[in-house]
């Protein structure tokens, strides 16, 4: 029996379906698929989980972590502290072991003796000689390396009481079509399971029990959902430049187009994907296609957004529909390319020089990534302006439990105000930028529609209602005012905020996107302290009137967001004219998902401060 290093002082954690497992690996060592296997197995056991990849901007060698929160209450945000670490990276093992909460567990490769300074007396060590086992069991060097990961998953299945059948089914699903790989993987899982069972008392007090919490749910990442949403939304043109963390949006679009967009008769493609030379070209292609009547999109992240500014101004001013996915990462500049933030709100809301404004959508989960991706094309066609879907790395690249993706077969694409040849016949004089309906949205024509009616010259220079160049200030101002009206009209087509009213009190929380993952936990734990704020999840910009009304109905609203400069708060101040004293910021900008603990602590501290100064809201 292997040596079990355990101090008598340890009171090992006893937790069922409520703990955090963190895997510390070396990037490029093949850990991702093993860790994914673990997460998926827990999901299939019906227990809510939220996996988070914390990875470096690197292909091989640097540290990478996979953090899985398991929570029976469905708290899917991050939680601080680690209950069980799988410490596979010698570079970080000191920090990794230190991150474990007292009473927690450390699973490590005991092929090499752990140095004394890494020994804590308040945690339980689970040594497994992974390297030695794999040397003995496998012949090929790559197998010896890769299967170390699978062996620890096998061991975890014994430690944490994972249904072994669920694991073997998953392996069979994962390697369907590559049958040769199934048996060795299952063998590796068995070795791990066997070793843990033989050498330790299994399961631990930290363990899983089958549950029914995930009924009907799926486990998917936001970018996969967004790419699929583009297929369903009728996108035929995608132009892009590879950029983490946006790349997988186009990967997903490509994958599903290959399956779902091939003409049955000819085998030809009902789509075109162009990997452009840079983001300028990517958005230029998108605009050219949008102008010519194809639904087109591009996906990028912060540095790409910076490059696309000039073109966004063109699309706004010349009124060309396009869809842009901004999978936000940490800026400024190159920033932390593989970390997450909500840091591009201001630069997207008013992207480009001059007076501009763009529609932003804020999905909070993969189902919404799908839904907003598809509806972004309708909105964009309807308002003839760019629509930017503001996801982030956290949502885009991590799997998340969500409702299954939903499509209404009765729905039809809304191509907006586009005149056909027959309609043009009826019109005496066509004006591309005439506001005939009084809603700020003019009528467009596609090139080639009619032999002598409906052509116009699209330009980024100042133009009149008939698209003719003008330097007449009054005419210019008229166009700009119509664009303001158009953005007001646009709000009617945007998803409304989601409100939850717990009680009629004067305290509110406002937030967007991935911040949502922390909120149910915040609400529950504040309720235990007698604090019951109402919540508003904003889902689109420009804001609905109901956003302003929410602030009107509350004395104080905590605006919770993941950036340094309180950008959402700034937008609310600018757009809704909300007084500074009505809003308190709660900010998180370290690149990893905001935690409920941070939000709760900030609220409590702030309320204590106000109590002390006597300005607490009633």
């Amino acid at each position, binding site marked *: 029996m292997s040596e079990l290093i355990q101090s008598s002082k340890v009171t090992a954690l006893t937790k069922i379906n409520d703990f955090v497992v963190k895997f510390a690996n070396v990037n490029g060592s093949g850990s991702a698929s093993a860790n994914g296997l673990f997460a998926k197995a827990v999901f*299939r056991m019906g227990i809510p989980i939220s996996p988070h990849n914390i990875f470096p901007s690197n292909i091989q060698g640097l540290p990478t972590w996979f953090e899985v929160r398991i929570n029976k209450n469905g708290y899917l945000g991050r939680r601080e502290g680690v209950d069980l670490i799988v410490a596979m990276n010698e570079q970080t093992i000191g920090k990794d072991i230190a991150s474990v909460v007292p009473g927690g567990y450390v699973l490590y490769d005991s092929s090499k003796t752990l140095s004394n300074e890494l020994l804590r007396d308040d945690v339980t060590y689970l040594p497994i000689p992974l390297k030695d086992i794999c040397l003995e069991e496998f012949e090929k060097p790559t197998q010896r390396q890769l299967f170390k990961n699978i062996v620890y998953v096998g061991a975890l299945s014994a430690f944490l009481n994972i249904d072994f059948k669920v694991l073997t089914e998953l392996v069979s699903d994962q390697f369907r079509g590559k049958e040769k790989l199934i048996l060795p993987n299952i063998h590796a899982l068995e070795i791990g399971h066997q070793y843990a069972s033989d050498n330790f008392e299994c399961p631990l007090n930290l363990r899983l029990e089958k549950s029914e919490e995930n009924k009907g*749910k*799926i*486990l998917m990442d936001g970018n996969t959902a967004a790419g*699929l949403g583009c*297929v*369903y939304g*009728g996108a*035929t*043109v995608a*132009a892009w430049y590879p950029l983490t963390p946006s790349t997988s949006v186009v990967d997903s679009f490509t994958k*599903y187009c290959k399956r*779902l*967009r091939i003409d049955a008769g*000819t085998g*030809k493609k*009902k789509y*075109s994907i*162009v990997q*452009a*030379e840079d983001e*300028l*070209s*990517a958005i*230029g*292609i*998108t*605009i*050219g*296609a*949008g*102008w*010519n*009547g*194809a639904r*087109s999109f591009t996906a990028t992240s912060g540095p790409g957004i910076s490059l696309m500014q*000039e*073109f966004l101004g*063109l699309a706004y001013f010349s009124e060309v529909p396009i869809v842009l996915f901004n999978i936000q990462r940490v800026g400024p500049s190159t920033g932390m390319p593989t970390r997450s933030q909500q840091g591009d709100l201001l630069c997207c809301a008013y992207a480009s020089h001059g007076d501009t404004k763009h529609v932003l959508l804020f999905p909070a989960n993969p189902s919404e990534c799908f839904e907003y991706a598809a509806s972004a094309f309708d909105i964009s066609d309807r308002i003839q302006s760019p629509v930017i879907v503001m996801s982030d790395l956290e949502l885009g690249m991590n799997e998340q439990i969500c409702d*299954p*993706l*939903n*499509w*209404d*077969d009765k729905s039809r*694409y809304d191509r907006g105000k586009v005149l056909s040849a027959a309609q043009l016949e009826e019109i005496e004089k066509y004006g591309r930028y005439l506001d005939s309906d009084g809603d700020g949205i003019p009528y467009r*024509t*596609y*090139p*080639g529609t*009619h*032999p*002598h009616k409906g*052509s116009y*010259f*699209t*330009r*980024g*220079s100042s133009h009149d209602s008939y698209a003719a*160049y003008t330097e007449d200030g009054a005419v210019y101002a008229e166009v700009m005012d119509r664009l303001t009206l158009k953005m007001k009209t646009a709000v009617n087509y945007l998803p409304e905020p989601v409100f939850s009213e717990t009680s009629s009190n004067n305290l509110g929380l406002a937030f967007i996107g991935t911040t949502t993952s922390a909120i149910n936990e915040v609400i529950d734990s504040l309720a235990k302290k007698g604090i019951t704020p109402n919540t508003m999840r904003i889902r689109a910009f420009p804001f609905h009137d109901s956003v302003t009304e929410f602030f009107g109905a509350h004395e104080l609203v905590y605006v919770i967001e993941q950036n340094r400069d309180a950008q959402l708060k700034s937008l609310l101040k600018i757009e809704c004219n909300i007084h500074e004293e009505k809003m308190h910021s709660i900010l998180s900008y370290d690149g990893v998902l905001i935690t409920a603990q941070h939000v709760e602590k900030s609220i409590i501290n702030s309320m204590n401060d106000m109590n002390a100064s006597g300005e607490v809201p009633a």
Partner: protein
Amino acid sequence: MQAEKFPHKTAVTMSYINKPKFKHPQMQTNDIGLTRRDYEGTLTTLCGGCGHDSISSAIIQAAAEMSLEPHRVAKISGIGCSSKIPSYFLSKAHGFNSVHGRMPSVATGANIANKELYYVGVSGDGDSASIGLGQFCHIVRRRINMLYIVANNGTYGLTKGQLSATADLGSKTKSGEESHFDNIDMATLAIELGASFVARSFSGDKKQLIPLLQAGLSHKGFAFIDVISPCVTFNNTDFSTHGYKNTWENHIALSEVDFVPMREEITTSYAAGKDKEITLHDGSAIHLHKTSNDYDPSDKENALHHINAYKKQGKIATGLLYINQSMSDLHELQETVDRPLNSLGNQELCPGSETLNDINNTFR
């Protein structure tokens, strides 16, 4: 002088123009019943004598003679004097004056959306050789089926006469600033990057330019024409290599081209051995008159050699420099459906809820 250089038939007497219905030659109608006026654009706002206006006029004549349906053309440009040109021809066609140096990407997107239109991109040397050089290179690589014209005057006209990247080494601006750098030759660049049709011409030489424009429009694939187009205000001195004087004196046609639309083929005959006929994708043809140097435009290396050899002598090689009719365009390479992508609707594009449920199941 120019008449001697180009003794072949002039555009006005081209055999394929129908008999005029009206007495005034300007009011002649073409095969689809349109007059030259139907191909015109708005009144020019360029300087009097600007080479670019001759390009507009050549495009008008080329399109009218070919009986192109104006509304089946999309005109796309960047920013600068050159990029104003699309306003001045084919007002029945949709136009898009985009952002500086980015016409290629906008044209790419437009072409992808609807492969059934003719795409005419008009750019300048600042637009394509400096700020947009990257986009130029990549649209050539991507083989977009279009006619790409660079109105090349070696200067930044709209910002009052700075040197451009096509200004020849040692040439001087009006204010006397000398270019210390080698010029970028857009034609050789296009050949090297894989353009399947590359020509150079001179805005002042319509007899050469018009058939080249027509051939470029009929060519399937990326057709590039570098048109030396003097800037009368800022780059037309005796030292300007892009000025009228130098270009008249030093442009030498490597090949002399006639364009023969498909429907005229039967009635047009050329003496065997004297001319070479190249059939284009749409059934029209170009006839290459043999010149003294026995130039073969199907040979890439030969083309580059000739252009560079003439350049060393201070000469500008013009005419059809290179052609390859067998290259696939982007749509063929990507195997897009026959119908334009912008014509596909719900039924063709949306896989429906049943498929989505199957997909959902793969994430359980």
